């Protein structure tokens, strides 16, 4: 009796011991004290079995089966070890053969060159759950770059589990969700293609120490002002996170050659004629100029901007809607954007502009009409007689919304000293980017996207996505019927009949 109980316990003990490692993985919540209990119980049961069946145990241990058992155990472990080692080597080797006709899983030569010229290791942060098709596609794409010899790795960030990272990297789940990091710098992927990734790597390689100059000397907002509400200290910090260096610039001789962009942020005194001249030359040479204006202030740039098709109104935008009710009528809320790279992922996100003036996109001969980038709502209007109090809408002089608050102009400048494409972006407001307002609504996104676009390189590598040659299948009604009949009926029926025939023949034999 004791023997039988011992044997039953032994079998249960074996099950306990063998299932522990499997269950450890299956539960996936780390080591639990219940596992310890399971192991101890398993060991105790086997011990009990051994003690109650001493006779059998000693017979087996001394019998000729012992050699077999020992040999099998040792050789099985050896084979298993070799297989694990072989698999590990194969896993690390990354060796693969692309059998597709168009070599669709092989990187373009430009991508191979780019990834091999990376000065530092690159990490791709993908804000997707690791089981989504997007992540798996991206993981496979990154593995191609690694296979080509690049120091590049990828990590999935589950936005639901790590919301703090989503905030840290300023990710909008409906916008670009992939960040490519190299050292302190980071870039966003515009889509999940090889072209986008290679261009992001290229920007990181070239973008090291990209400098954006901020003019001084006309009462502009200060770059080093971290505390003052009007200061741009916060904006400077945000730019540094994107790998852009903000440098003050006193316009004297000429615009520095390494200028990725020049920003005029809220001048309160007018620019002098020669200064305007310099900025104009800079822009004609493929420069990137971003001008942030304020109402009730002459910047001296009005005529120059007009020659580029951007008119500056002498007004103050008044906006009375539910959003801005609490902030007063001079804070304009905007949720309407042009189709443009800068505002690509904005959808209906709000941006806030305290005390703004409106702009006009003008039709000028020989100049491509500029694009109004940000528009006010319909409730807003531009008050010309803003010095009077109280301010009321004057139908004869005041323009009704939607009014442009930001206008962007572009011009091809082949052979320009700075770049082959001049870009001019004018805002009718400066405050939205200052310490007091940059963190409000989507203001920092608008500012950073603008700066990034301004400082962006035009040259980019074009990689045609490779895909399999197109094919089609057009079936007549009879063909369709035949296809269905053959595959789901005739073929299995034939096989089943053969089975039945064999069965009957065997029965009768």
């Amino acid at each position, binding site marked *: 009796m004791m023997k039988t109980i011992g044997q039953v316990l032994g079998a249960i003990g074996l099950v306990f011991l063998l299932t522990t490692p499997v269950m450890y993985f299956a539960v996936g919540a780390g080591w639990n004290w219940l596992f310890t209990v399971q192991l101890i119980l398993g060991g105790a049961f086997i011990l009990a079995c051994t003690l109650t069946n001493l006779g059998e145990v000693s017979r087996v241990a001394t019998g000729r089966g012992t050699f077999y058992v020992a040999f099998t155990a040792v050789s099985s472990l050896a084979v298993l070890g070799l297989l694990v080692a072989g698999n590990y080597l194969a896993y690390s080797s990354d060796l693969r053969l692309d059998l597709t006709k168009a070599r669709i899983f092989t990187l373009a030569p430009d991508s191979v060159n780019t990834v091999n010229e990376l000065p530092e290791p690159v990490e791709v942060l993908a804000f997707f759950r690791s089981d989504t098709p997007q992540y798996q596609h991206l993981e496979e794409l990154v593995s191609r770059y690694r296979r080509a010899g690049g120091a590049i790795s990828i990590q999935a960030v589950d936005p639901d589990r790590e919301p703090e990272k989503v905030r840290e990297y300023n990710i909008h789940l409906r916008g670009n969700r992939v960040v490519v990091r190299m050292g302190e710098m980071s870039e966003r992927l515009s889509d999940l293609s090889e072209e986008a990734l290679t261009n992001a790597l290229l920007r990181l390689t070239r973008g090291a120490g990209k400098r954006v100059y901020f003019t001084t000397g006309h009462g502009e907002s200060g770059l080093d002002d971290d505390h003052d509400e009007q200061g741009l200290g916060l904006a400077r910090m945000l730019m540094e996170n994107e790998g852009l260096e903000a440098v003050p610039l006193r316009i004297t001789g000429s615009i520095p050659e390494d200028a990725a962009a020049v920003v005029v942020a809220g001048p309160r005194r007018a620019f002098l004629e020669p200064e305007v001249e310099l900025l104009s030359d800079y822009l004609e040479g493929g420069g990137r100029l971003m001008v942030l204006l304020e109402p009730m202030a002459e910047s001296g740039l009005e005529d120059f901007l007009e020659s580029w098709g951007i008119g500056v109104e002498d007004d103050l935008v008044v906006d009375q809607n539910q959003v801005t009710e609490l902030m007063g009528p001079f804070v304009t809320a905007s949720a309407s954007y042009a189709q443009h790279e800068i505002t690509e992922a904005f959808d209906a996100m709000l941006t806030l502009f305290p005390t703004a003036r409106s702009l006009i996109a003008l039709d000028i001969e020989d100049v491509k009409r500029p694009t109004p980038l940000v528009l006010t709502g319909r409730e807003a209007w531009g008050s010309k007689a803003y010095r009077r109090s109280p301010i009321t809408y004057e139908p004869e002089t005041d323009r009704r919304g939607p009014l442009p608050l930001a206008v962007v102009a572009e011009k091809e400048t082949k052979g320009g000293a700075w770049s082959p494409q001049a870009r001019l972006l004018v805002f009718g407001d400066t405050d939205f980017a200052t310490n007091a307002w940059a963190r409000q609504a989507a203001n920092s996104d608008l500012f950073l996207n603008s700066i990034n676009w301004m400082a962006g390189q035009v040259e980019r590598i074009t990689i045609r996505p490779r895909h399999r040659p197109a094919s089609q*299948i057009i079936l007549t009604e009879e063909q369709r019927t035949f*296809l269905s009949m053959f595959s789901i009926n005739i073929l299995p029926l034939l096989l089943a009949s053969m089975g039945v025939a064999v069965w009957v023949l065997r029965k009768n034999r």
Partner: protein
Amino acid sequence: MKRTLAIARKEIIAYFTTPIAYVVFAAITVLGSWFFLSLLGQFQRHSFELTRMGRDDMLAHMNLTDQVMVPLVMNLALVLMMSVPFLSMRLLSEEKRQGTMELLLTTPVRPLEIVAGKYIAALAILTTALALTLSYPLLLSAFGSGDQGAVEWPTVLCGYLGLFLLGASAMAVGMFISSLTSSQIVAAFLTLMLLLLTWVVGWKAVDVEGAAREVLLYLSSTQHLISFANGMVELKDVVYYVSYMVLGLFLTHRALEGLRWAA
């Protein structure tokens, strides 16, 4: 070698003179055709929509390889895993049940030759099953059209190579289980459970990160088919399936040796 081939021949004849292989083949083609026809239907609806909307740019990306054959290969893997246990179950347990195993072991035939002979037969059956499903790409080729052919054959054959390796590794596992028991039902059921386990083990990967995720995904048998289905042969995938085969064959061999010792 001669004895190995003799065993293989005897086994193949046994397969084709019993109804089970035909039943399994019929089941494979019914399920396979179901997947094939529904994927084809989806493809046609999609291209019809695109034509109606005048999206020629997107029509240029439509092809029967990506939209029908690649997913079909992945679906056939499921069909294969459900069918292999019923093809492998009789390999050794039948001998055990009929009592012919002892007889076989007392002849000069070495266990290695038995294992090899039986496995060759199993691979022949597997090849037959896969060959039957080749009718789907052949039908696409016959009725479809494209500048460079309706389907991309290198990719399709690469997918079938993957299916063969997956099936062969499943057969090796099935043969080992079949060597442990004299009941075919038990052998089939245990094999099915084991194969399903290697299939779903990757589902856990989404909960973990880093090395644990890589290990879990690596263990998953269908994960290794994805590259094959898309037209890529990766060393790690080949090594993975071959490892299962080696392990299965080795353990079967040990089990037979054990029977010889016990006899």
